Each structure stands twice: as C-alpha cells, then as structure tokens.
C-alpha cells in the first residue's frame, strides 16, 4: 500500500513533467474552481435552486483522474460531480443549463446539479443516493467483461459511501469477478457534517478495500501529480485485465457540504489549515519553482475559464423551459423503441 499523504513535497512525477502538461493540469483545476465559484454566485442570486454541492478544494482529484480516461471508458459519479462532468468534456453550457432547469441542459432539466448525465461521453451521473452508483459501475464493467471489451469503468464516490452496504457488496462483487472497475474514493473526511473519526471504525479506507483482496493505493488528493500517477497505474492495471483497483484520495472540501449547510461541525482553524494546502496554489507554486509555469500563466488560464463560464451562463440564460405537456416524457421509452 502506497501511503503518500504526508506532505506537500513534489512527487517524483514532477521530474518528468513538461510545460504543456503543467498548463493542462492547472487549466483543469482552474476551470473547475471558477465554474464552482460561479455556481455559488448564481445560487446566491436565485438562478440555481435545489441542492448545490461544490467541489472547491477537491479539484486535484478530478484534474488528476478524468483526463487519463479514454473516450470508451465510463464514469459513474456522485452528486458533487460538476467538475467530473466538465473535465469529461460535457460542455459547460449544458451543465449550467441543467442547473438552470432548461431543456438544453445535459439531462433536459430533469436532474439538476446532482444528476448530470451525458451518455455520448459515457458519463453515467450524477447519482445522489450515497453509494447507490457503485453497483451500477460494477454492472457496466460486467457487461464490458462479458462482451470482451477492454474498457475501464471509473467509479467516483465519497468517504461517506464506505459506510454503506452497497459499497461493500460492490467491492466484493468486483473483486470476486475481477471486473474492470477503477474505484476512486474521494475522501474529503466528512460524511455531510459528520467527521470521519466519528463514523468510521477504520479511517484508512484503502485498508477496508484491501480486505476484499483488491489492489489499493492511498494518495494525497491535494497533489494533482500524485493523483495522476496513481490513476495511471490503476487504469493500466484495470485495462490490462487485472481486476479492480482502488484509490483513496485524501482531500478536503473548502466550502460547506451544500448551500444549506451552516458548517457548525468544524472549526475555522481546521478549514484554514486545509486551505493552506489548496491544490491549485500548491501546484502553481511548485511548477513555477521548477520553471514550468510563468508568472502570467495562472491569470491567463483564469481569464480563459471566466470567458468559457460567461458563455455557459449566457447559454443557460437563453435556454428554454420544457413545455409542461412533456412532463411525463421519458418515464418510459416511447412505444416501439428498441
């Protein structure tokens, strides 16, 4: 078991990193951060309603994982999935329109923030029952195995899911049947408002997965290069037919659980401590130190992201509301469809 959660030192991958890769990683994280900040603003303005779970603080996970998956691979995610969808290539406008409840949204306005879907990109949600998506990932992988396809199903879930029975049933099935699933546990150390030391008997979650005789790693989820390196190993192993692989990514959410959360359960000092390990700032500082990024790069990437997001908001604002006559459309397939 590789345990690399100790500190902010650069991982060995830095030595092999070039400028274009560094820019791509920073761009991914900045896009997600800026998108989420805009969502928070739009929520405050009443443009987005329902639940809104922001990914701010956890960007290194999405940026280190999602770009390593091939177009043929599948992703099953959670209700904190805007960043996963965005980096998977779901257009920012389609995500924003979804949160605006517009028919141009990636789920036609039926899902909202927690249920982003894009089957054309093999992005299977957007699942808001904690651990409920994990068995589906096992099934997608089972189908690939039975049909002889060398695809990977990446299954993202939070630390809270590890306390659910569906998590354990899925671990067992995937390991027993040696299915091609890459399990990615985003351990932000809270199940909504309950800290992990208050709900888990064993807080090393990789160790739990290991008990299913699964290959596991535990990595610093604030270090995008460590995430990327672990993901690369996992994808290679899973695609090679070795069975499932489990990565625990230790991270932290800087914002409240959802827009309704008054954050009574954690101290400002704790949040401040983790903010000092901001994955974007950490990476930017280290990459700059090594001469891979220049002083203006971050600002340029932020401007690009802001322009993309402004266009997404305009797209969502201009979107249409589905006619109420279509309310029950897609409950079942239309008659005669395959």
């Amino acid at each position: 078991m590789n345990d690399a959660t100790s500190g902010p030192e650069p991982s060995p991958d830095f030595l092999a990193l070039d400028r274009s890769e560094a820019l791509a990683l920073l761009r991914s994280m900045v896009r997600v951060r800026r998108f989420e900040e805009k969502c928070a603003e739009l929520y405050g303005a009443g443009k987005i309603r329902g639940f809104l779970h922001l990914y701010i603080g956890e960007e290194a996970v999405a940026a280190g994982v999602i770009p390593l998956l091939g177009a043929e691979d599948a992703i099953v995610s959670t209700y904190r999935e805007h960043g996963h969808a965005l980096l998977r290539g779901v257009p920012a406008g389609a995500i924003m329109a979804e949160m605006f409840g517009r028919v141009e949204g990636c789920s036609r306005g039926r899902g909202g923030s927690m249920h982003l879907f894009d089957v054309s990109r093999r992005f299977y949600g957007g699942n808001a029952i904690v651990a409920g998506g994990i068995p589906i990932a096992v099934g997608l992988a089972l189908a690939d195995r039975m049909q002889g396809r060398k695809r990977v199903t990446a299954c993202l879930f939070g630390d809270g899911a590890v306390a659910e029975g569906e998590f354990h049933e899925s671990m067992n099935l995937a390991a027993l049947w040696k299915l091609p699933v890459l399990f990615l546990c985003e351990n932000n150390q809270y199940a909504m408002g309950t800290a992990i030391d208050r709900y888990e008997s064993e807080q090393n979650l990789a160790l739990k997965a290991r008990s299913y005789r699964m290959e596991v790693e535990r990595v610093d989820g604030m270090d995008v290069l460590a995430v990327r390196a672990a993901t690369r190993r996992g994808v290679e192993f899973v695609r090679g037919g070795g069975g499932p692989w489990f990565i625990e990514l230790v991270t932290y959410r800087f914002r409240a659980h959802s827009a309704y959360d008054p954050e009574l359960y954690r101290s400002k000092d704790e949040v401040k401590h983790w903010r000092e390990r901001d994955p974007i700032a950490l990476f930017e500082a280290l990459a700059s130190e090594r001469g891979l990024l220049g002083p203006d790069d971050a600002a340029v990437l932020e401007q690009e992201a802001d322009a993309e997001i402004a266009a997404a908001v305009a797209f969502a604002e201009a979107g249409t509301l589905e006619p109420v006559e279509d309310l029950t459309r897609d409950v079942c397939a239309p008659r005669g469809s395959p």
Partner: protein
Amino acid sequence: MSGAAPAAVRKTTYREAVRAALREALRSDERVFLMGEDVGRYGGSYACSLGLLEEFGPERVRDTPLSEAGFVGAGIGAAIAGMRPIVEIMTVNFSLLALDQIMNNAATLRHMSGGQVGVPLVIRMATGAGRQVAAQHSHSLENFYAHIPGLKVLAPATLQDARGMLATALKEPDPVILFEHAMLYPMEGELAADAGAVPIDRAAIRRAGKDATIIAYGGTVGKALAAAQALADRGVDAEVIDLRTLRPLDDDTLVASVTKTRRAVIVDEGWRTGSLAAEVCTRLVEKAFYELDAPIARVCTAEVPIPYAKHLEEAALPRVEKIVEAVLGTLGAGHG
C-alpha cells in the same frame, strides 16, 4: 389455434414453464444472462434454473453472493451497457434490500437523465404465502412496485404466462418485474408444445360470466376460479379477470367487465390498506361508478405479518369461501 390439426399439447408444470422460458431466452439472445442467489449450481431456490448452468456455463448462469442491492445494481449497469440481464431475487421480502436500486436507479434513470439512460432489465422474484415460512418469506408486496413510475410489473398466473411473459419482457426497453407466486411452481397443466411469447399489456378473462366480476392476479387467480365454480353450483355466473399486468393496469378490460356484470369483487394477497385492490377499486369507482349495482368488495390478506402456524396462515390469506361470500354479498341478501 385455428387450422386443421389441433396443436400438440403436453403436460408440464409452472416451474418447468419458467425454466423453458429461461432456456429459450438464453438460447435466442447472446446478451441474456441469468444472475442471482443459487441460480447456478443449486439450480435455483425453486429449481427454476435446474440444468441451465450445465447448458450455458457460469458466465451466463451466474451465482451471486447474498448481495441483493449489489447484484440488482450490477444488473442495472449491465443492462445500460447493452446486456439483457435476468436477475432473480429469491423472494419479494428480500427484494427490499434492493429497493434502492430498483426504485432510485432502474425506475428513475431514464427520466432523470432526460431520456438518455434506458434500463432494459428483467427482475424475477417469488412472492406470496402458503408454505408456512412465516413473516420474512411470505409477503405479497407487488403493490410497492406497482406504485413506481418507470417500472412494468407482471404477475404470471398460468402456465402460458409463465412460459410466455419473459420473452416479451426481455424486449421491453425499460425495467420489468415478474412476480411468480411460490405456490404456483408445482402447478400442473397442459401447455401447447409451441407455446411462446405472449402480450403483456392486457388483462385476461379467465372465465366469462354475467352476474359478477372477480378480479384477481398471481396466486389468487386459481382461488377466484374455484370460487366461480362454487358460485356456479349456486346459480351465480361469475366472470374472472386475471390482471396479468399490475402496472400499467388495463382499465379497459376491467371497466368493460363491470359494465356487463355491474358487480365487482377484488381478490388480493396483499394487505388491504394501500393495496393493489384499493387501486383497482378506485379506478372502477372513477370510471364505472354509474355502472355499479352494489358496493365493490375486497378480499385481501388480514393486516398481520404472515404467521407460521398453518391454521393462522390460512386464516390470514384470501380463501375461496371468503370470495364466494363476498360475491354473494354484492348480489344482496338471500341470493343463492
């Protein structure tokens, strides 16, 4: 059934009809596989899949751990990815462990994804009481599932339907749940040698009659027919309708029958409160109120967890005498 030579028939059982349907499904479509607890080496807890492991191998007749949510969810994922899984849950009580997957995922994903994610999954499960297996193996919870938009819910009550509903269900683009009443598995009868797929969108009139309509499904259809026979001996000509499809309900057949007979008794092995019988009753009130000559009656299971002791279990369940009594009640005192 027309033509010069009568179609060949053979004696079989409900269990064998289910097995024949499974075998045909596995033979005719490479995407089909059967998955569940003890479906393989054991041969199925009700022996429905006996011999299929030997014929199709362990990939396609797949024994699972005791993980209802896990393997139902895996069936959902496999269905999304192009397979046609048949998932067997040992009994409806256990299906509650998978209710999250069935309701929050299988029934919901198409709509919640704006039409992108279809789940062509078939789930079979045993239901019902009568074997003294007490309160955690005997319930009839078909109404739970019939409540959920996005599902199709079937209750094969005959050999023909046991043989033919599965093939049609596998062609559905959305999840279908098949309830097999555990007391029906040993039921013997004749089945056409060329029996195959049957429609799954209409109720069936199992006995035509003019004086009253008895509406039943699954394990109570036989009891309804026995009651109709007893009523015939007393000069009452009852019509028996087998719902067959519990969601969506075939209102037209029900309304047409009641319009003819003007009386209805609904037989349901579920508990009365919030039952399917309540739903059928309401629809008849909504759509055929002015056709009725008497209040609609229901014969349901007593509101008690099914007890072990034989006499108590029998007392809890709908019985032929209770159905006869209920029909006579709709005809007014003194009849017969």
